[in-house]
């Protein structure tokens, strides 16, 4: 079977993938918030 270092690299890879996925989620949330604000202002403006 695999030794412990391989499992360590698997944990590090999992952390990196989690970080990337979390970053993408944060970016999406921020943009969605901006869109909602712009839409509401445009609605009041019209």
């Amino acid at each position, binding site marked *: 079977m695999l030794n412990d270092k391989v499992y360590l690299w698997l944990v590090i*890879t*999992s952390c990196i*993938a989690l970080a990337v*996925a979390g970053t993408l989620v944060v970016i*999406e949330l921020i943009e969605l918030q901006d869109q909602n604000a712009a*839409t509401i202002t445009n609605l009041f403006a019209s």
Partner: protein
Amino acid sequence: MSLALRIFIVLTLVMTLAFMFIQMTLFATRENWKRRWDQETKSLSVELKTSTQTLASESAGRVRAENQVASLQTDRTNDQGKIKELEGQITERAAKIQNLDRDLAKGQTDYNALKEDYQTQSKSLDMVRQRNGELTNIASVARAVAFNLNVKLAEVEDDLNNLQTEHTRSLETLEKTSEERKQSDAFVAQVRDKFPKVYEALAGEKGTTAMLQAVVAAVRPGSTGQQEFVMLSIGKEEGVQEGQEFIIYRDNKYICKVRIEKIMNDMAPARVIPSSWNTNGLTIQQGDQAANRL
């Protein structure tokens, strides 16, 4: 390291990889709602402007169409009035056409009458032309006759000129004879002064041989057909005597001698002396001169 931890680590890796794949797919395929909103609002505003413009143009067109409809209605009413007027004119024209038909029938009858008159006039014209041709022929003949008469007139004028010249010559001879008479009268006056007895004797002879002149009033032929009896315009008052001879002449041309057979008051019949006829063939005519001496 226990087996459970190892399984947990692998599961965690798989789940994190799946989560990352899902998030990356969503990030790649997500919709930009803001940009879509802006584009759609812009397109809708443009469509709204174009629709308002088309609405304005259509409303203007509608107003124009309504105006046109109103004008067409007025035109229609006017046309209806005109149609009524034209119908009235049509009835009037129909009445006129009937009158014209009547006039045409009358004109046709007049034309037939005039045609008959024309035919008769043409026949008379042909007759007149024929008569005209005859008259032109007669005129040509008359021109020829007039030409001959002109020629004769020229000859007569020539004769007249010759007679005028002879008349002037006779006047000249008459003047000469008058001068000679004056000279003889002067001579007689001298004889009367110097020899009165001789003058008285000559004057007695002269009274017996006085000159008598007459004119031939009529001429009658004798039993032989030749001219034999002549009536002279002289009588007892002029002192003519029976048996006296007269000379018949015309224009100083001798014709013949006649002898008085009977004396009336103003006429004297005479007989032609047959041996005294002239040699030129002249015969006695009414109006010839007669004298007892030349």
